[in-house]
C-alpha cells in the first residue's frame, strides 16, 4: 500500500471541514448584521425596503435550481450517465452566470441611485441605513466571489468528466465541488430573508 491510497470519505470529510471555515467566515458578517439590526431596527426596515425584492426572489429561485441540478449530476454520474452529468454541470454554471448578471443589474440600479459604500447620498441617509448597505454590499459581494469560485470549480470538474478523469466510481471531485456549491446556496438562503425581507 502506498501513500496514493484512496480515501473518498476522508476527502469528503476534509471538504466538509473546509465548508465549516466558510460558514464561520460569513458568520462574522452576520454578527455585525445582528448587532446593527438591534441598534437600528427602523432604519433597517426602511433600508431593506429600498432593496428590490424581485431581484432577490428571482436569484433565490435561480440558486435553488442550480443546487438541484448539481445534486442530480451526482446521481447521474453514479448511474454512469456521463452525457447527462455534463449537461447538468453546464446548466448549473449557466444558472450561476444568470445569478451574477441579475446581481449586476441590481447593483447598477442601486449605485445609480447613489447607494454604495462611501457615497455622499448614503451619508445623508444616516448611520443606520449606511450600516445596512455597507454590510449588504460586503456580504453579497463576498457571496458573489464564492459564486465565481464555485462555478469555476464545477467547470474544471466538467472538463475532467469529459476527459474521463472523473468517473462513475471515482467522482469525489464532483461531490466536493457540489458540496461547495450547496454552501453558496446555503449562505444565500440566509442572506435573502435577512436583507430583502425584514419589515
Amino acid at each position: 500500500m502506498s501513500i496514493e491510497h484512496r480515501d473518498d470519505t476522508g476527502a469528503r470529510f476534509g471538504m466538509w471541514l473546509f465548508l465549516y471555515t466558510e460558514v464561520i467566515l460569513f458568520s462574522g458578517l452576520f454578527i455585525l448584521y445582528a448587532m446593527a439590526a438591534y441598534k437600528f431596527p427602523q432604519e433597517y426596515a426602511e433600508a431593506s425596503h429600498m432593496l428590490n425584492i424581485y431581484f432577490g426572489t428571482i436569484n433565490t429561485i435561480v440558486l435553488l435550481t442550480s443546487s438541484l441540478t448539481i445534486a442530480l449530476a451526482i446521481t447521474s454520474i453514479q448511474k454512469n450517465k456521463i452525457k447527462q452529468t455534463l449537461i447538468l454541470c453546464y446548466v448549473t454554471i449557466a444558472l450561476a452566470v444568470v445569478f451574477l448578471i441579475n446581481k449586476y443589474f441590481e447593483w447598477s440600479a442601486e449605485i445609480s441611485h447613489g447607494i454604495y459604500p462611501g457615497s455622499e447620498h448614503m451619508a445623508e441617509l444616516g448611520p443606520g441605513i449606511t450600516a445596512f448597505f455597507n454590510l449588504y454590499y460586503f456580504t453579497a459581494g463576498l457571496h458573489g466571489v464564492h459564486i465565481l469560485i464555485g462555478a469555476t470549480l464545477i467547470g474544471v470538474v466538467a472538463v475532467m468528466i469529459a476527459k474521463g478523469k472523473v468517473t462513475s466510481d471515482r467522482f469525489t471531485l464532483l461531490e466536493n465541488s457540489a458540496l461547495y456549491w450547496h454552501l453558496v446556496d446555503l449562505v444565500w438562503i440566509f442572506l435573502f430573508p435577512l436583507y430583502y425581507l425584514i419589515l
Partner: protein
Amino acid sequence: MTYQPLKNTGFYSESPRPGVLGWLLSTDHKRIGILYLGCIVVMFLVAMVLGLALRLELIAPGPTIMGPQTYNATFTVHGIIMIFLFIIPSIPAAFGNLVLPIQIGARDVSFPKLNLLSWYCYIIGAILAVTAVFSGGGAPDTGWTFYVPFSTQTTTNVNLAVTGALMLGFSSMLTGINFVTTIHRLRAEGMGWGRLPMFVWTLYSTAWIQILATPMLGITLILIVLERVFGAGLFDAARGGDPILYQHLFWIYSHPAVYIMILPGMGVISEIIPTFSRKPLFGYWAMAFSSLAIAFAGSLVWAHHMYASGMSDFAILIFSFLTFIVAIPSAIKVFNWVSTLYKGSIQLAPPMLHALAFIFNFAIGGLGGLALGAAASDIHLHDTTFVVGHFHYTMFGGTGFAFFAALHYWLPKFTGRMYNHKIAVISWGLVFVGFNVTYMAMQAVGVQGMPRRYYDYLPEFMPLNVVATVGSWVLAVGLIIMFVNLWNGIRRGAPVGQNPWGSATLEWTIPSPPPMENFGEEDPVVTKGPYNYKGVVADEY
C-alpha cells in the same frame, strides 16, 4: 569531535525529484516539516533581535536608541512575526508535520498536496509581512491587534501586513483541516483513540480551533482592508459602525489562538515527561479530555481582553466567569505532569530540563492570567507591562520552551545526530534565568502602573526596566549558545540510533532519520500504549 558520516540518510536522500525541487515540490510530510522548521526558526531569530531592540530602548526614559515611530513599528513587527510567523505555526506546522503521521502509524497526512500548499501560503504571508516593513508608507505601527479606528487611519503600510496575516491564517487553517482528517482516517491498525500519544490529542484539539476560529480572523482582516480602501466605515461610529465590535471579532479568533499556541506545547511536554521518567503519563484520559476542554472553553472567553474597553458590565460578569473556568483544564494538566514524576526514574536530559522549565514558567504565566481574568484587578493591570509579562511567560516561557524542548527531543530523530549535552544544559540554565529575570521585572513594573507600548516612561519606572533589559542580555547569550550548539549537532554531532531516549511512541521504532513512507513494506500494527516502557531500551550514542 571527529566527523562521522551517517550510515543511512533516510528521507534526505530518497526522493522522487532530485535537488532543490525535490524539496520545493515535495509532498512528503517530513520534508514539508523541515521546510517549515527552517523558515520558522529564521523568523524567530529575526523577531527576537527586534525584541532585544525593544528592551534596549526601554533601558532608560526618553528616546535612547530609537524614537516613538520606530519603536511602535518595532513592537508591531515583533508582535506580528512572533504570533503569526513563529508561534502559531511553530509546533503544529513544524513538529506536527514531522511527527504526527509517524506517531499514528501513517505514511503521510491525508492531503499531502494541500499540506504543501499551506506551506506556500505561509511563505507568501511571510513575504508580504516582510515587504510591508520595507515598502510604501513605512512599517505598520498598529500593534499586532490592529485596533480600529487607528488601524484604518494610520498612513503606514497596514494593508500589506494585514493581507500577509490573512495568508498565514489560511495556511494555519489548511493545516488544521489536514490534521483532523488525518487523525480520523489514517490511524494504523490497533491505534485506537486510547493509544494516541498525548501530542496527537493536543494537535487534534488545536486543529479544531484552527478550523473553527481562524476564519473569524480572516473576515476581520478583510474588513480592515475594505475599510481602508473603500472607507466603508463598518467600525466607524459616525456611520453606524461600532469600534468595540471590531475588538469582539478580533478576539473571537485571537483568544482561541492563544490556545492554538499553548496546546501543542502541552502535548510536547506530555511526551517528554513520561519518557524521561520511564513511567506512563498520569491520568491519560484526564489529559486527553482537558485538551478538548481547553479547545472548547477557550472559544468562550475572548472578551476578557476588553474589560476596560467600554463593554457592558454584564458581559464583563459573564466573560470573567468563563475565563476562570478555562483555567481549570490547564490546572489539571499541571497536576498530572507533576504526578507523572512520582516514583519514576527521572533523567535530567536537556529535553526534560526544558519541559520542567515549561511547567514553572507556564504556571507563573497562567496564574498571572488569573489576576487579569478578575474584573477589578484587570482594570488596573490592563494594557500595562504586566500583560506583556503575562503573555511572554505563557508564549515564550510556555510555548517557546516547549519548542526548545521539542528541538532537543526530536532533532536527533530527524537529523540522525546528537548535539552536545553539556553545552545544551548550560544554555538552558542561561535562558531559564535570563527569561525569568526579564519578565518578572516586566510584570512588577506593570503592577506599578507602567502602560505597555511606551517607548518613554517616567523615572520611577526605571530601576525595574533596567533589570529587565539586563535580563534580556543573559537570555540572548543563552539563546545564541543554544542555537549554535543545536546547529553544530545537526552538522557533525555523533550519529544516534533509532531510539536515543528510550521512548515508546512509534516514531522511535523506525530509523533516524526516517525513510520515505516512514514504515517498510507492510503497515505497522500497534499492540501497546504510547507510554508503555516495558522492555524499551535507550540505545547508546
